[in-house]
C-alpha cells in the first residue's frame, strides 16, 4: 500500500538525485584551450569528493591529450582555506608526476592574504592573478608567442567591404 505522500517523496528524492548528478557533471570541465594547455575552471567550494573527481578527470585528460601545462583557475572559489589548498596542492603534485606543469591562476588579494595568514606554503607552485596572465606564461613556457598582425583588433573583426564606422 503506497500513499500519495510516499509517491511525492520518492519523486522529490529522484529530482534531487538528478540535480546532484547534473551538478557533478558541471563541476569538472577540463578544457583544452590550446594544443598542450589544459584549463580547469573551478567554480564553488572544493571538498574531498569533488577534488578526487577533478583529479581523476584532469589526469585522464592529460594522458589523452599529452598536455604539458595545466592552468587551475580558482577565480570562482569563494574561500581558499587549509583543506582547499591541500586539495589544490595534491592536484599539482599528481599532474607533475604525469609530466605536466601546473599554474594556479585567479588568486585574489584576499585569497593571497588568507594563504599567508594560514601560513600555507605555495612557493613550489607558480601562481598568477588572472587566467590571461597564466595563459601568457603557458605560451612562453611552450615557446609560443602571440603577436599582433594589425594595428587594431576592430580592423580584423570587420568583414570585407563592410564599414564598421570605426
Amino acid at each position, binding site marked *: 500500500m503506497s500513499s500519495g505522500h510516499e509517491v511525492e517523496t520518492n519523486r522529490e528524492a529522484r529530482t534531487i538525485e538528478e540535480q546532484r548528478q547534473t551538478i557533478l557533471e558541471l563541476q569538472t570541465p577540463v578544457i583544452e584551450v590550446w594544443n598542450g594547455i589544459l584549463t580547469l575552471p573551478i567554480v564553488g567550494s572544493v571538498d574531498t569528493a569533488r577534488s578526487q573527481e577533478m583529479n581523476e578527470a584532469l*589526469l585522464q585528460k592529460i594522458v589523452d591529450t599529452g598536455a604539458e601545462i595545466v592552468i587551475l583557475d580558482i577565480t570562482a572559489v569563494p574561500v581558499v582555506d587549509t583543506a582547499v589548498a591541500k586539495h589544490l596542492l595534491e592536484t599539482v603534485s*599528481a599532474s607533475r608526476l604525469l*609530466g605536466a606543469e601546473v599554474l594556479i591562476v585567479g588568486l585574489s588579494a584576499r585569497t593571497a592574504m588568507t594563504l599567508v595568514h594560514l601560513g600555507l606554503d605555495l612557493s613550489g607552485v607558480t601562481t598568477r592573478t588572472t587566467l590571461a596572465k597564466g595563459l601568457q606564461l603557458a605560451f612562453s613556457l611552450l615557446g609560443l608567442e602571440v603577436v599582433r598582425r594589425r594595428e587594431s583588433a576592430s580592423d580584423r573583426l570587420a568583414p570585407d567591404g563592410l564599414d564598421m564606422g570605426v
Partner: protein
Amino acid sequence: MARAPIIRIGEVLIATVQEDLNDQDAVDLQDELNQQLERTGSSGVLLDVSQLKLIDSFLGRMLRDIATGARLLGAHTVVVGIQPAVAVTLVELGLELTGVYTALNSEKGLQLLRRLMASERARYRSGNERSRIH
C-alpha cells in the same frame, strides 16, 4: 634474473620496469643501473614505469634514490609513464617524488632528457650557471 631489462641507446640508458617488480628487483635495478652508468658514462636514464599498477612507498623511495644516485654519476633521470591512478596514490602517500623529473611517455621523456643534457653541456661550455629547469 633482472626484472627490468636495461638497453642503451646513444647516451641514454632505458630501463623498462615489468609489472611484477618486487623490492629485491628494484634494488637489483638500482645496482645494475649504477654499474652501467659507471661503465658507459651515459648521461641520461629513462625509467619506464608504465607497466606498474601500483607504486608503494618503498618503490617510490627507490625511484627517488635511483635518480639521486644517477645524478652523482653524472646522469639525469626521467621517470615516464606513471599511470593516473598511481600518481594519485603516490600523492596520497606523500611521495611527490620531488626532485625527480617525470614525463607522460617515453617520447616526451626522451625530449626532456635531451633538453636537460643539452642545457648541462651549454652550462659547462659557457662556464656560468645558466641552468634551465623544465
